[in-house]
């Protein structure tokens, strides 16, 4: 019985991981297409100092692609899931702060587009879903590894 529930849980983890990996790899590749546009998107939020904007624009797309790829490999799944959860929290906080300040921006989350507040709200919702998904994968993995060591 336990074995059966574990194995069905594994399938859920695998399915969620595949979904998250697809979203993060897509988002990373979309941002890589135009680093300049993405840097302008980051600057639009008015949070990151100018000295770090381009560095963030260079690092974030490979980071997202890396998270997506590492999530597909069981030994690195936990690190990738934690990174995704932290990233989702960061995206959520930044988007929410922009919405609270009354800004209408293109967050550049999935490549460049037209600035739109409804889209910012949708992306805020996506961040919540990504956070829940990645925390689910992380907690399942950490509990599983703790159980296997005891």
């Amino acid at each position: 019985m336990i074995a059966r529930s574990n194995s069905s849980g594994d399938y859920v983890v695998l399915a969620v991981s595949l979904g998250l990996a697809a979203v993060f790899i897509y988002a990373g590749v979309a941002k890589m297409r135009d680093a300049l546009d993405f840097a302008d998107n980051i600057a639009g939020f008015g949070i990151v100092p100018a000295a770090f904007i381009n560095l963030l624009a260079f690092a974030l797309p490979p980071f997202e692609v890396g998270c997506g790829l590492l999530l597909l490999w069981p030994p690195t799944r936990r690190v990738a899931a934690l990174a995704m959860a932290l990233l989702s929290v960061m995206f959520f906080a930044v988007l929410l702060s922009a919405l609270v300040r009354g800004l209408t921006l293109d967050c550049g989350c999935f490549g460049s587009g037209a600035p739109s507040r409804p889209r910012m709200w949708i992306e805020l919702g996506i961040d919540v879903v990504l956070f829940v998904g990645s925390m689910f994968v992380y907690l399942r993995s950490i509990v599983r590894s703790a159980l296997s060591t005891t």
Partner: protein
Amino acid sequence: MTSAVSGRLPQARSFGSQILRDLGGVVLLALVALAAGLVMNRVSSRPLPIVYQTPEQRFDAELTTLVTAPPFKIAPAATVGLEEFLAAVKGKSALIIDARPAVFFEQGHVPGALNLSRERFARDYRRLAPVLKPAVDKPVIVYCSGGDCHDSRLVANALLSLGFSSVSVFTGGWIAWSEARLPVSTGSGQ
């Protein structure tokens, strides 16, 4: 009860150490991603500088490049003499551009001229954009001090690069205008 609590403590410690180890992995992943991003930027066809430049700063840099290193592909602007220039000034048939530094412009310039100096081209161009942009299809005549001055040619070529269709240079410049004792305006005039 005691044994249950003492059993949970090592488990909690184990969770804590695992989370710390995972956070270390996240930091390592971030560093690798930054290194990969820097390499990708370096080999890209349009590498970005390390420090971000706003769209305005990039535009300024582009405009400044136009007047510091004019592309050789652009044909030299046509030239006009004093008579033709005077007719254009009187008839207001062309946009007159003074390419000299602001300090000379303020001391005296051709009436109706706009100060688009070679020296501060980017800043002046942005300031004059509301007047210049609607005039891209109109005749434009640029002058500077006269004689051997190159500012008028550089500004004229920059305007051609920016899409102005009819740009010429009044080669006599300010020297020819003032020697002919023609009307003079002073001050910034804008």
